[in-house]
């Protein structure tokens, strides 16, 4: 096992790549009662067109299969549902699907190994029937309708639709009621067999564990499977420009919601660039920024918008989301603040103060076993070791920040999405 230690925050991770191609990461925490395990596959809503290892033909499946699979994995051939079995053990089990991965997890204080039996069993043994697939369409249909009532979800999706011409990131993770109606058990099995191969998966545990011991326990519960070849993922060619600069939807909300999106291209320097963008966004629209103060004092915004940078293979974008009486004023202010920073440069004191703040935020992510493990899994599928954020931040200088500002914060790549009352 490889030991990676971070002395600054007194954390370590043991990492092992098994013979079947799966990576296991163990983050020991002696002082906690809680134990957390998360097992993910590098397969999310973006994968609807791919070539199965060993095949030549392209497989194309309806949108929403990854999420549908996540729902259906819990059902077992013996009639039980693994979510019920795990809950009955007193552990808190769940699963989720993102654009680039699907994850199964549980958190507990007791009965970790009993739960591990069930957990590793169900993720490795799918059981789909015509009947149980049909039944799930009703439940997922309600999930889709629930999201339809969330203005914050709509404003987000509309932003992606305005930015992307073809890339599947713009589609709802759940699919639509129409696309999921085409899903059947054969499609589910095909995607399962392709993407749930150990070589496409990673597992993270965090809690009071002895690394060698827990690694053995995991290994002995693995069904023997050979590492499959590479899955060829096919994404449509995505132009660099945006589809449109403005998108609006009417919904019953008290005050308009907005998202400003900036379309970007993925960079080689993932961590460094991510840090620089976080610092820049806070300089532009953070709590101590001039723009925030102006907007707040004029009553245009009531609280600080959220500032995010999302990226994975094939796409990258900035998202700024909040509520404002007039989103256009925020958008205009944002653009002119960027223009003035490009012209006048960045203030050194401000840069280092905000960088301190960002550092504190990274340290806080190690407070909770669940948050830590989820972060390691999500970063792993992006090809990142989470400790890099702690280690690299000191070296992210304002000169580099200015370069990123000029390269990424381009007006022509910005979109504004608004949800407001009719």
């Amino acid at each position, binding site marked *: 096992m490889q030991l990676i230690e971070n002395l*600054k*925050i*007194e954390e370590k991770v043991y990492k092992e790549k098994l013979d079947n191609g799966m990576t296991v990461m163990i983050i020991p925490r002696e*002082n*906690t*009662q*809680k134990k957390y395990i998360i097992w993910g596959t590098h397969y999310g809503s973006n994968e609807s067109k791919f070539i199965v290892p060993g095949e030549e033909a392209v497989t194309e499946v309806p949108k929403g299969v990854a999420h549908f699979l996540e729902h259906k994995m819990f059902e077992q051939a013996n009639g039980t*549902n693994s*979510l*019920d079995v795990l*809950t*009955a*053990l*007193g*552990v*808190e089990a769940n699963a989720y699907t993102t654009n680039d991965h699907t994850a199964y997890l549980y*958190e*507990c*204080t*007791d009965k970790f190994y009993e739960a591990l039996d069930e957990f590793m069993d169900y993720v490795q043994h799918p059981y789909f029937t015509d009947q149980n697939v049909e*039944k*799930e369409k*009703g*439940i*997922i249909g*309600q*999930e889709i*309708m*629930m999201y*339809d*009532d*969330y*203005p914050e979800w709509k404003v987000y999706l509309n932003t992606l639709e305005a930015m992307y011409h073809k890339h599947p990131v713009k589609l709802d993770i759940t699919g639509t009621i129409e696309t999921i109606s085409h899903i059947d058990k054969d499609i589910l099995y095909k995607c399962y067999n392709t993407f749930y191969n150990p070589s496409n998966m990673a597992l993270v545990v965090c809690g009071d564990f002895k690394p060698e011991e827990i690694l053995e326990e995991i290994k002995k519960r693995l069904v023997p499977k050979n590492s499959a070849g590479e899955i060829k993922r096919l994404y449509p060619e995505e132009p660099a420009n945006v589809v449109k600069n403005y998108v609006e939807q009417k919904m*019953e*909300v*008290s*005050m308009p919601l907005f998202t400003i999106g900036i379309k970007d291209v993925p960079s080689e320097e993932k961590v460094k660039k991510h840090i620089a963008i976080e610092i820049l966004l806070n300089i532009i629209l*953070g*709590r*101590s920024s001039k723009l925030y*103060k102006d907007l*707040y*004092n004029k*009553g245009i915004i*009531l609280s600080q918008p959220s500032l995010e940078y999302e990226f994975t293979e094939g796409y990258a974008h900035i998202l700024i989301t909040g*509520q404002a009486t007039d989103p256009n004023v925020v958008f205009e202010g944002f653009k002119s603040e960027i223009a003035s920073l490009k012209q006048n440069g960045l203030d050194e004191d401000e840069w280092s*103060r905000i960088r*301190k*703040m*960002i*550092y*504190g*935020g990274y*340290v*806080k992510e*190690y*407070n*909770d*076993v669940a948050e830590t493990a989820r972060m390691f899994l999500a970063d792993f599928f992006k090809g990142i070791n989470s400790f890099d954020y702690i280690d690299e931040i*000191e070296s992210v200088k304002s000169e580099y920040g200015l370069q990123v500002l000029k390269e990424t914060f381009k007006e022509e790549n910005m979109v504004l999405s608004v949800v407001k009352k009719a």
Partner: protein
Amino acid sequence: MKTQEIKQGIKLHTINTNRFKTNLVAVFLSIPITRENVTFNSVISSVLRRGSKNMPTQEQISKELESMYGASFDCGIDKTGDNHILKFYLESINDRFLPQDSENMLKKTIEKLLEIVFNPLVENGSFKQEYVDQEKNNIQRRIEGKIDNKAKYAIERCTEEMYKGEAYGLYKYGYIEDLEKIDAQNLYKHYQDLIDTCKIDIFVSGKIDEEISNLLEQNENVKNLKPRIPNFVQTGNIEKQKVEEKQVSESMEVTQGKLIIGMDINVKDENQKYKISVYNTLLGGSANSKLFQEVREKASLAYSASSSFIRHKGNIIISCGIEIKNYEKALEIIRKQLEDMKQGNFTDEDLENGKKGIISAIKGIEDEQDTEITYYFGQELSQNEVSVEEYIEKISQVSREDVVNIANSVNINTIYFLKD
């Protein structure tokens, strides 16, 4: 946890723990909620974060916190039992994990938070006019924003229907028509009264090396606080009058209907709360519960179907997102589940598993800094101190008979439906 009374009515609770990378300091001000004070309190909470005597602008506060490695300030308003709780938090990184040897971060964190809450910016005997005007506007938007999250709105509306004309039926952010009565002067007067009479609880959680009580006693802002007989409503036993079941429905632009059922339970003593917790878990508190299994898994009517126990008021609130046309069908299934609970139609295994789930959650409390503080604060309000171990013991003792008795004492108060 260690509790000391610094002055009459003002308590310091310290939790010394090495589980976290952070120190968390919290100040809670508790006062009975009334129609007269609810809007005032709500604006006060907002005005305080705008500036203090030594950090007079929000920008200054923000810069100060940023340079403390992103110490994060948070404030909020809650209704707990018949109390209005003004909550203020400041979280900072423990010195051990900071790059350089910087100043004592915990001490600084405590001082900054106390400064924001107890030493506001005052001009000519009142709050700063500009801040008050802006925050009145802010609160107005917040009140209007009640409709934005339809699921939360539905629960809020159901609660209002259940507690019409009573303290707990008040909206925690207050009322738009009451905002116009507020000016910088009377708000400051209200603040002074609040600070002089409310119950004050200060929580400090983290790796604590020094005597926090000395630090507090020497703090100027604490020195200025008067001893008081704290004015708050002890939450505990709750007598319910049996009421006629009421159905309310409202229309709004929604894709999915939100069905909320508010139920009453008599809480005769603290012990009963453990029994109700177990009942709630079996009814709708987990993935194995009757509601999740029957409404979602078997009938495929919903994605979310659950219930929660409002322990300080003796209510269970059922909440489901369903297709609008399935209202009758969903309601019928839910009624059947309530009836089944009354008849004791659940297995001993269900009971044991439900208890395990609660116990596991309780054991995990000490792994979350804010949850641990909330746990002890809840006990502080009910004046009933229970350690995590005792809590677990009480849950394990709950019997089938206890749960059936609870089931038979539950009454539906209001069925609320939000549709299109």
